[in-house]
């Protein structure tokens, strides 16, 4: 974390400098700057936030399953630690299930699952975060973000609108991909597309940002699609009722409150 502070400082300065310029201004050339800004834009908008999310999981045969949940986020510091809480409402038989993450930069996250029908709070063992997020094509890591420090980055192309960055894992044994490439929007710094390449050099997984809206001044991806090119299935995530800077207290994100999620914060009523 200490290591990230100078970066953060650099970033903040860069933000001040670049913020005033218009989009056609000079392109960034430092890949770390771009990656860090993309990380912030995608995962750290505001101090906290809330969204009503609907996942539509579609298999290769077109069969759909719907999962709906409210997701809350609270940043400890921008680009650093943050917490997520996910409360499921749909389908009915998983209603009340909660997934909680305390994300730590530079070390393992803490993750919990609360299963109301079994009245069980389970801590999820540290380790692989590239497992399915509740049966969808998203991974846990896609929900809370992959730390930029885990990859080596290379700016491979700068187009009129996007930066194309190739990311190679520093610990190849910990992930299923050989590399991934991200297309970052020059104006919003939101990742518009990510493609994961396997050892054979084939793209097998793709995440696309299908819709972007500006909410409370923050450009926000409101519709995403992740496709598993091997199974032929895909998942669409749609976010509505998005709100930022709500002042969500830290206690909402603790193991103790898992069993009794506070409606006041999870309610999407504007």
């Amino acid at each position, binding site marked *: 974390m200490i290591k990230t502070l100078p970066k953060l400082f650099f970033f903040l300065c860069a933000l001040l400098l670049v913020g005033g310029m218009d989009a056609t201004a000079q392109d960034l050339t430092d890949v770390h700057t771009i990656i860090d800004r993309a990380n912030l834009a995608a995962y750290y908008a505001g101090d906290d936030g809330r969204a009503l999310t609907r996942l539509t999981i579609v298999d290769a045969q077109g069969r759909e399953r719907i999962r709906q949940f409210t997701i809350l986020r609270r940043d400890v510091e921008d680009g650093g630690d943050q917490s997520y809480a996910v409360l499921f*409402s749909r389908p*009915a038989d998983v209603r009340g299930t909660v997934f909680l993450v305390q994300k730590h930069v530079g070390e393992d996250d803490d993750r919990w699952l609360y*299963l109301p*029908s079994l009245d069980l709070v*389970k801590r*999820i*063992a540290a380790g692989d975060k590239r497992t399915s997020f509740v049966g969808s094509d998203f991974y846990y890591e896609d929900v809370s973000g992959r730390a930029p420090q885990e990859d080596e980055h290379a700016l491979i192309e700068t187009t009129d609108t996007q930066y194309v960055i190739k990311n190679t894992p520093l610990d190849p044994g910990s992930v299923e991909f050989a590399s991934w490439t991200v297309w970052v929007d020059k104006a919003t710094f939101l990742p518009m597309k990510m493609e994961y390449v396997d050892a054979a050099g084939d793209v097998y997984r793709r995440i696309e940002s299908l819709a972007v809206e500006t909410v409370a001044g923050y450009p926000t991806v409101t519709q995403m699609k992740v496709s598993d090119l091997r199974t032929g299935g895909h998942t669409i995530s749609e976010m509505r009722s998005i709100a930022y800077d709500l002042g969500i207290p830290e206690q909402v994100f603790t193991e103790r409150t898992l069993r009794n999620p506070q409606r006041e914060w999870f309610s*999407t009523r504007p």
Partner: protein
Amino acid sequence: MSIAHSITTLSTTRPRLVFVCVLLLTLGLGALIPLIQIDTDPENMLPDDQPDRVFHRSVKSDFTLYDFIVVGVVNEAHPDGVFNQETLAEAHRLTRAIEQIEGVVTHEVLSLATVDDVRSDGPGVVRFAWMMADAPTTDAEVQAIRDATERQPMLRGTLVSEDHRALAIYVPIVDKSESHRIASEIRAVMAEAAGDEQYHITGLPVAEETFGVEMFLQMGVAAPLAGLVVFFMLWVFFRSFALITAPMIVAPVTVVATMGLLIGLGFPVHIMSSMIPIFLMPIAVVDSVHILSEFADRYRLTGDRAEALHEVMHELFTPMLYTSLTSAVGFASLAFAPIPPVRVFGLFVAFGILLAFVLTVVFIPAYISRMSEAQLAKVQAAVPVKQDSDGPHDATRLGRVLKWLGSGSIQYNKMVLLFTVGVVAFSVWGVMQITINDNPVRWFSPSHEIRVADRVLNTHFGGTYDAYLVLDQTTESGAPNVSDLAAAATAIVEQTGDAALTDAWVAIQADAEDDLDALIDNVYDELDAALTDEEAVVWEDVLAGLEGASGGGGAFQDPAMLAYVEQLQAALLATDHVGKSNALPDIIKTVHRALREGDDAYFTVPNSSGGVAQTLLSYQSSHRPNDLWHFVTPDYRRANIWVQLKSGDNQDMAAVTEQVDAFLAENPPPPGLTVNWGGLTYINVVWQQAMVNGMLNALLSSFLIVFVMMVVLFRSFWFGLLAMLPLSVTILFIYGLIGWTGKDYDMPIAVLSSLTLGLSIDFAIHFLQRTRALQAETGDWATTVRRVFAEPARAITRNALVIAIGFTPLLFSPLVPYNTVGIFLATIMSASCLATLVLLTSTLHVMRRLVFGSPASADGS
């Protein structure tokens, strides 16, 4: 016979025209052979729209099931079996290599190196991790993997043998027809291994495909080899290469033209049709041998080629036409079998038989007419009339035996008939012992690597043959009436007396515009917006009403339904051939236990559907969430029990279905559930039953048709009946023998009944036709018998010997159906030859007054 005369005249005067036509026919139809499409899929034994097949397909697609190759890694040497660093590393390496093979469904490969391990990881902690992400490098890691597999009932007996001696890798493949290539590539990877491990490959798709590949090798090796031996046998009898070349042209031309036509018409060459050459060769040779035999005998006496030819053709045209027609009818009757490849087989063999007849009567005279005088002189010299010679290989030994047979049949006619009665009794008893059974793996000889793999892996594992027992929820509440549902929901909302809630309800109803799904979506949004528990409960109640009707959750999250699935699994395990079954309750119980600190007391299905759903939600947080959908459909309305059988024998699969039926009768499924079978092993049972019934009907109907034809041919009821006698005894004897030897009644054997009918009737027609003609000529029964047992009997016996010995190369084939055909041909030939010569003579002797009447009126024509 004027037709015979004009054909013979045409052939002998315009031989070049005949040769050119035969050449054009061969080249024209032969040119189509490269268009060959091969179909080795026994599934295609059933029509595409056959209900069991349609169901099987729906099961495969609904549960995203693939056909798979089973790879086994066995270590009998190491004290810890496969649980040592080297073997696990080998299995890991093999898995990674298999994943790279084109045509393998990479993300569905099942191996210790690809599966996930959901387990308790200390108090309050659940862990989702790969079972064996990397090859273990310490004994502690090996130990950990072994212990983890012990806690995974889904893996034990499937991926790890209970005795720890074997590991399995299930390799799903995109297309069954590529299994041989993929298996070969896997073998190449295996060949690089150096350790104590033995490797095996099995699975029905590999067996079926490999059979296809080897089948074509056999077509290229066994058929020509058989041709060679037939050629040698002909030489023994006729001692003239020039003369016997004629049938050796007719037979291949028949085969090439028939196969060319079949392929040219767009029919794929199935396992059945690949046998066409083997069936046509003997039939095509038989007629030629009759002609050659008669010709050689007559030419030897007269030395006049044209006269001998005309006489022979006059003598033989009608019996040959009738034998060809009856054989063709016998095979064409297969067109009524309910199995498409058998229909194609029957019709094209029938075509081939008629073509062989045309070729024989046109080509053989043309060919003989073009033989040089020197060649003919050789024929004359080669088979001299030396009744008293003791030369080792000449035909007179055969002549003596036949003479003895003729007189013996009359002298001991009572004994012959008594013996026949004994044989019939013996055969009937044998037929009653017949077990109807088939298994594509058994089409290979016991030492074949596929048979060995099958044996080894099925001793270690729960079974490598798969069937699917599928439970369907059939209750449908009918089209939900949105306004009724909405009215009920309105009542719930209004009961609260909360104006804000009522307003919201009115608004979201208006927004949904009578679309139930949209209405449900809207209610969920209201639920997620709820600020108080009271409000939330109202929306939850509303949803319960709306979703309940639209069938929100299927039956298979209901603990009661899952309990029934468990009962079914227990019943399956209690049957004789099921080694293991995997189903939804196994996943639920394993994950439930992992969520409950690994406490075995919780190796249970949670007692609420919410508990089940949340257990499965946890399972789906693993690396392989989609594995769930092999056992249940995403709507939870259809569940699949994957049944592992230790045997792919149809009778064993049939026994399992019967035992399950008995269980279902005693423990009927809960209302609204149906239970049905799918899977390749089951499909094989279905088509086999269709086959057995189809063959029996085909045999019976062709038997009747042939009988009518015989009565017409001989214009005599009694002769018609007599003609049926040898083939009836032969067919009965052959199938009795099968019963007695315990050989299973399988696909090749079923088809051979037609061949028996076709070949046996040939001998009977020739024999009776000549006997009757001679009796009319001589008017003396003893003289008739003596003369019948000279030329005609010699032709029949030569034929029998040529075919019986000619097809012995089939016995050396590594494919069991080819061995079967080889043995059968020899047995059919010997039995029907003896039945014709001895039994018919004895019977005629007893019935001579009845069938011949007074000597003057003997000839019906």
